[in-house]
């Protein structure tokens, strides 16, 4: 009976999901782009089944923050934009209880950040537009639940997942601009297919 329960879904299947996410960002530099202490993101993840209980997750998240920055005591505003792409890769280990799968995952994260600052949106000269980019690495440790909807014998089934945990990345170093750090609570949730 127990064997039947755990075998109802195989982690050896392939998963493709679209995701929304959030990463804690209580960094002074980040406050230029958002007054919230979290960076919302969207993306996609792919899971490759390895064994019945393990799979390899590849997760990509993108975030674009910023806009117009008003400065009190100054007549002129400027534009600021921060885009962050995260690529996370790591194993997932879970157990199946019918269509529900609690799991844990640790992932190595590669993070790319790009910053644009523009003092005059109407002009295109390089006197008032500045760009920097940075690469860094980090890690994620998360626990979550995946729910798979549909008969086990169907080739393609719907799935949903919610996971949370802790993430830490080394600071994104934007050179003379300074650096921005992301670390703390991380949340991901999404829906997709399993085949």
């Amino acid at each position, binding site marked *: 009976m127990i064997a039947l329960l755990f075998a109802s879904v195989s982690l050896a299947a392939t998963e493709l999901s679209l995701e929304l996410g959030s990463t804690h960002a209580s*960094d002074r530099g980040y406050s230029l782009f958002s007054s919230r202490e979290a960076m919302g993101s969207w993306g996609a993840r*792919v899971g490759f089944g390895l064994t019945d209980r393990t799979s390899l997750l590849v997760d990509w998240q993108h975030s674009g*923050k*910023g806009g117009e920055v008003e*400065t009190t005591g100054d007549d002129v505003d400027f534009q600021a934009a921060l885009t962050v792409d995260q690529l996370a890769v790591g194993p997932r280990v879970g157990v199946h209880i019918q269509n529900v799968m609690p799991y844990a995952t640790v992932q190595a994260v590669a993070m790319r950040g790009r910053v644009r600052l523009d*003092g005059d949106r109407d002009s295109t000269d390089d006197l008032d537009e500045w760009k920097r980019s940075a690469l860094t690495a980090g890690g994620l440790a998360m626990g979550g639940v995946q729910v798979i909807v549909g008969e086990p014998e169907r080739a393609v089934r719907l799935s949903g997942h919610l996971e949370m945990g802790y993430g830490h990345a080394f600071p994104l170093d934007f050179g003379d601009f300074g650096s921005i750090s992301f670390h703390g609570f991380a949340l991901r949730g999404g829906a997709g297919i399993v085949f």
Partner: protein
Amino acid sequence: MARTTWLIPLGLMGCDPFGHWPEGVESIEGPLWDRDVVPSADGGVYVALPQAHALAYAAPGTDAVRVELEHDAEPTRLLASPGATRLLAFTQWPICTAETDEKIELVEDCPFDSLDWGYGLDLVSGTDAYATAEVPGFMNAIAFAPGDATAVAYLDYESGDDLPVDGVVDLSQVVFLDLEDGSAHTMSVGFSPNNILFSQKADKAVVLSRSKATVIGLEDFETLVTYDLTLDADAVVDPVGAQLTPDGRYAIISVQGSSDLYTLDLEVPHVDIKELVAAPSAMWVSPTTDYDFTVLGYASETRLDVYDHVYFNNQPVVLEEPIDRLVGADGIVVAYNDRASTHDIYRLDLSTLELTEYVAANPVSSLEILDVGGTPAFAVAVLRPESAGGSDLDQYQDQNWGLAVLDLLGDDIVNLVVESEPVGMALAERDGRAYALVLLDGVETLLMIDLAAPSAARQIELAAAPLGIGEMPDGSFYITHDSPLGLITFLDPTDPSSLETASGFATLGLFDDYELSAQEQE
């Protein structure tokens, strides 16, 4: 399919579908850079960055450099020494006095009521802070002695700055500074010392405070003599204008709201008080012995009083209209009124005491004199709008800002109308020709006016609307712009077509955490 799906996120990372600007709106307190920049003899300017709590050095053609200050301090006011060979930066740095076992590194982590400040004065040469002087936090002004070796820090209360009080504040203090090593010598000289004069030999200073003048030797910082400006303890005498005669013997002092003129004899200590016809509104003391006069003007009297420095005899000169401003140059004094609606500008020849009257089209807002070949040849006045009157063309001129170019070698005056309010003006002599460089509010051009033929101004395109203009030690100019991320144009008047810029320096350290002073944490 499974073998290729992992390529999807990699492919998305490679493209850039996010070229548009996000639509958020954020706000930060205060500008990224302080437009009151300070020139350096090295060819760049120093800029305070309030958001980054830092000091930057920006020069044309190179990346801006952060100047590391002692205690990781942030600059609150910048001043250049004469010749701009040194920068004096009043600084402050955050200290957390909270008693906790945890190490607090960021200002934001320190309880508000435990946040304290340290204050100092950093001395900078090039991009190196080479010394720090202990100067009380309430002081905000510097007077430089001739020779670039000594300066005095004091409180300029009229500046309107906040007055940080840490425990006890002695408002009678001044601090003498050795600019070579930053060593400081504090003295109490009298309440509200705010006017400091130096002898040309830089061997003594006269510090004026309320009802008192103190002469201090700069060799050993000893008080040589103290003059009481009143014998009545209830009376208050606040010096407002003071100059030393060029031989250094006399200090001539005018007093707020008083028609008394004080003359302190610094060699044979005594005070002479002259009764003037009214409280003077302007005083000019010749800087050289060639024309050894003190000239006084009055907002309430139509006259100038000219006192020689030998017998202090007065030779009054009658005007048609009262004045409240005097600008001197070699052998002449130019008088005008920047508050009244009068239009007269007077040139007084100090060798003959002959008066020449010029009539500007509009009231004068400010005026500068330019020497050409060592002789004061031109004066340029900024004219402000006034209530319209007369014919249509008169009305047009009255209603607009203008410039007046005065030929100081003759009696010609040329009145010009300008597009908007001048926000900056500088005069320059190059190769025997005289120019006025004028910046207009909201206009992205620099007007370069040949003062010998002022009607045809050359317009030089600028990268952005200007805010102000200042002169570099080498005679070139810098122009600050209304650019949020930092923009300064450097202009050589001999080659006005080759403008150089320094930009983006306000982004320096923009993302950095606001850290408590590292030294205080140890």
